[in-house]
């Protein structure tokens, strides 16, 4: 296991390097640069645009910028400075990162706590009314676009006043007690977490159902039943454990998508997370801010995969890494 982990960590280095090169390349291939909006503004004189280009090294070819950026990352762990904020990218990303994690964890909680039991229920009671309702919910979840769902819930919030319309804190947040503060954030969290959690929940539930049905058809399940084991034990101890394997891989991938999955919801619902920040940076071609965010998300993706592999080994005795 130790050599496996070591090997995986060493593999991450060329992988992340490749990702950085690729995303830097894509950013540079996109037409124009950060200064375009400023260039189009007739009130800003060209001399200023030139001196800003020099300041940001945007007058140099892309590989010069990449080399400098990579050098600073490797030597000083410095991921550069945002063009629009003129601050180190991580100082801008840090508060946003926390917010995104809160949202993503709440959403993951909704996804997994609902998907697994509901999927099991649907498989055990195949073709029952419950199974049919669940598949109806699943097709709803799989087909509804995130933006639309988010706007629908915002409309609900506006019509009923049950939930705040976007944001993460109310305006009176500072006057609240610590408990009140936590509840205030939770209150704001409900709608975005529902949007973000329900959609993957639908597919996870279907996967759980299909896996369990496959396993239930296997002979060892028949054997267990023939031995006279109670049905509850057959399902929970023998069938479900084996049916969970593919979902554990998916769980690892969920970790990876934690940072990147919430772009749309964050923007529409005004959640002050990393997604909204990255999207704006991408639109404005704020190069290093985008790179910082991409590198963070990729690192999480790679780590998520690793966690999935390790979890798999823990759960399934047939899998061993040497």
């Amino acid at each position, binding site marked *: 296991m130790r050599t496996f982990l070591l090997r995986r960590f060493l593999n991450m280095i060329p992988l992340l390097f490749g990702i950085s090169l690729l995303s830097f390349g894509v950013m540079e291939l996109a*037409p*124009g640069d950060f200064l*375009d*909006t*400023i*260039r*189009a*503004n*007739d*009130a*800003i*004189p*060209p*001399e*200023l*645009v030139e*001196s*800003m280009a020099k300041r940001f090294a945007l007058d140099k070819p892309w590989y010069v910028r990449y080399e400098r950026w990579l050098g600073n990352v490797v030597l000083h762990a410095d991921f550069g400075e945002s063009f*629009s*904020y*003129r*601050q180190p990218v991580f*100082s*801008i990303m840090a*508060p*946003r990162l926390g917010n995104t994690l809160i949202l993503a964890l709440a959403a993951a909680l909704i996804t997994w706590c609902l998907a697994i039991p509901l999927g099991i229920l649907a498989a055990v009671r195949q073709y029952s009314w419950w199974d049919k309702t669940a598949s109806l919910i699943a097709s709803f979840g799989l087909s509804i676009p995130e933006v639309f769902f988010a*706007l629908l819930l*915002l*409309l609900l*919030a*506006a*019509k*009923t*006043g*049950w*939930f*705040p*319309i*976007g944001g993460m*804190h*109310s*305006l*009176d947040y500072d*006057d*609240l*007690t610590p*408990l*009140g503060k936590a*509840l205030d954030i*939770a*209150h704001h969290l409900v709608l975005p977490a529902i949007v973000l959690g329900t959609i993957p929940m639908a597919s996870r539930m279907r996967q759980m159902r299909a896996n369990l049905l496959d396993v239930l058809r296997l002979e060892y399940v028949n054997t267990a039943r023939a031995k006279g084991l109670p049905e509850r034990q057959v399902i929970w101890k023998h069938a479900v454990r084996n049916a969970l394997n593919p979902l554990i891989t998916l769980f690892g991938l969920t970790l990876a998508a934690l940072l990147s999955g919430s772009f749309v919801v964050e*923007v*529409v*619902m*005004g*959640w*002050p*997370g990393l997604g*909204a*920040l990255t999207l704006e940076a991408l639109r404005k071609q704020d190069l290093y801010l985008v790179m910082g965010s991409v590198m963070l998300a990729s690192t999480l993706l790679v780590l998520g995969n690793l966690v999935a592999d390790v979890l798999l080994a823990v759960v399934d005795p047939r899998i061993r890494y040497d």
Partner: protein
Amino acid sequence: MIRVGLPRWARLAAPLALAVVLAGGCGGKNVSNAKFQDPNPLPEGADVVPVTGHHGGRLVYATISEPKTFNPIIANETSSTDILDGPVYSGLVEFDNGTQQLKPGLAESWERSDDGRVWTFHLRKGVRWSDGEPFDVDDVLFTSKVVYDEKINAAVRELIKSEGKPWVWEKVDSLTLKVTLPAPFGPVLEVIGSVYIVPRHKLEAAYNAGRFEQMLGITTSPDSIVGTGPYRVTEFRPGESCTLKRNPHYWKIDQNHQRLPYFDTVVFVACPDYNASYLKFQSGDSDIQDPVRPEDAPSLQDDQKKGNFTLTNLGPDIATNFLWFNLNPGKDASGKPFLEPYKLAWFKDVRFRRAASHAMDREGMIKTALQGSGYPQYGLITTANKRWYDPNVPKFEYDPEQAKTLLDQMGLKDRNGDGIREDAQGHKVEFVLYTNSENTIRKNLGQVAKDCFAKVGISCIFQPIEFNTLISHIRDDHKYDSIILGLTGGVPPDPALSQNVYRSTGLTHQWWPQQKTPGTPAEAQIDKLMDVVVQEPDSTKRKAAFDKVQEILGEQQFTVGLAREPLMVAVRNRVKGVRPSVLRLHVMYNIEELYEDKGAGQVASR
């Protein structure tokens, strides 16, 4: 849409504690503070503003994006300048968006020498920074030093220069400033007004250490953000909101000698999605919807009474939408012309450009592209620009017959009976029209323009493309036929500040940027007139020169005006003192004069 009393059960199991805190907190705040206590003495040189109002209350304003910096010297996008320029920092001279006139700011008066080269400014006595430190000429000199520093990319650096040379700023005494210009310059006061003064006592050490650009970033503690504006930043939540509280040392007072501003708290809420900000306004979470999309106007119109707000149509916007043809005769590195020579020959002919203007059905554009309300546009300056608009600009109004006659005169005739004209060499009169795909209204305008061209026998291929690609066609490769784009113009809307559009050497001289020598006699004449607009100290002469510029541009139709939607804003009725303006920030520019009228409807914000 307004919900005042929330169903208690809906507050998601919120315990009594929360409710008590909320009720207690709000109650405390909303109790009318009839007696306003001013802890600080009024400055001797306070500016008396002819307004009255009540102190207290909170104003919530939803914007698209959060501020990127609290440093007014390097801030160059509206998300930052909306908060900094005016609310938090002041300049020596102020521009009133409502009257479009200059008025005294930190300087209470000024004199100009006869040749317009030497200006003396008298600063107000007793003005203090929001942290209580005194303000004087040294702060102004420090600010000018920072702005002129080549290492710092100050947005106004090139504006406070004459013929590329910095002005000389000198201290006469602690409240008197002398500014000497190396060459005459017209809009001195307008430009001085856009230099927002920063505190020397807070920033000099960082400047000397070469860290000025990084100062006052969004991670700065609010206590270190010190200005002379009506408000100071007290809290910033990344991606969410920026809270301002009244500056207890502000230097403007009302008619009753009570210190301004009136609102205790102003919150700028970042709301990147338009729909969400619209819902926020409708449900009472924000007090101002700025701007209102044309398609939302009818439903807001109906909700005014119920929602306790007023929808105001501010008339034509100062911004424009127009079409231009590529007139650049240059060649690329491989010697290939940017534009096929036969196309350039059509576009260069003024009759073609006038025919294009005659072909544009602007009323039709308003009906289909602008949801029925809008204004036809002809020149680059609209009636919204009170001081500079010239009513005598020639208009080549919708007249397809006249367009056809002009095209016939040029020898562009339909020779093969396919409904599309050809020139003498048999080239089909066909060109590509670009616009930026992010702008829905321009996309609709382009569709109508295409049909209008078809009606006079011109084939127009309309292609919306991505903004950055469009800009690189205009600036870098110059390979395009025609484009629809707009101009927004700054505040104050002085043409000398957007001379890059009018001068043939300018980078935003869209149809043929950065010419070495003026390409047409008309452009040569405009260049000469722009010298007057920029350098002449006498404002009547400047206006006369710029009227002539507008008339030449109109004659030449370098840009063919289209149509623009009206600018509309909606403001909650409890907010008083509003004098909305077509100039940005339409409602909030006189933030210090706004106040809450508690009688006007319930306080809807939660």
